[in-house]
């Protein structure tokens, strides 16, 4: 079965410092990885996905199949980046559905 691991429950960084939120996955097939973000009192929303290879709000993530990782990075943290971040692995099931398996999340706190 697939699994997503986010080793840090909480990550605190100073404003302007680089950020790296770690995500490792285990899956025998070809992975599709996502990062979702949940700001305070808001709903879970998609931040980025690896197939798009895009940068959203200054965040990037590269899929490393050798290390089975999909770490989220930003060179200079902003206070508005403080939120809960979830890494998710998308898998097609035999029943035709597309399930997301989430990690437990990392709370990012950016200190002014």
């Amino acid at each position, binding site marked *: 079965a697939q699994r*997503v691991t986010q080793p840090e*429950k909480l990550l605190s960084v100073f404003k302007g410092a680089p950020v790296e939120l770690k995500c490792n996955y285990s899956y025998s097939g070809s992975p*599709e990885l*996502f990062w*979702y973000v949940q700001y305070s009192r808001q*709903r*879970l*929303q*998609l931040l980025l*996905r690896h*197939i798009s290879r895009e940068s959203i709000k200054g965040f990037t993530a590269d899929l490393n199949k050798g290390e089975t990782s999909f770490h989220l990075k930003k060179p200079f943290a902003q206070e508005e980046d403080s939120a809960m971040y*979830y890494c*998710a692995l*998308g898998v*097609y*099931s035999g*029943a*035709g*559905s*597309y*399930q*997301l*398996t*989430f*990690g*437990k*999340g990392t709370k990012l706190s950016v200190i002014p």
Partner: protein
Amino acid sequence: GAGVSQTPSNKVTEKGKYVELRCDPISGHTALYWYRQSLGQGPEFLIYFQGTGAADDSGLPNDRFFAVRPEGSVSTLKIQRTERGDSAVYLCASSPRAGDVPFPQYFGPGTRLTVL
């Protein structure tokens, strides 16, 4: 446009009672998902609908949980004989379809269920 909506936003019930949680997906989205998020955990998949049928209910924890989507739009998650361990935030998500292309899933605000 309007996003995914869920009602109620909060539900408090007593152990053993029956509850229904409602999800209104984004108009035109044929794929609908239910997830459960317990405290300190990420969302866990419960069930997936493509249209009116439950294509994958492999995440439902036991037969006390059931979900319907009779007209291919609104969905209701039903929990019988609730237990304290059912307390969690229940999230609904929709996407244009689940097919060869993994469309993003758009999440609702969730229903916080508390079983006393």
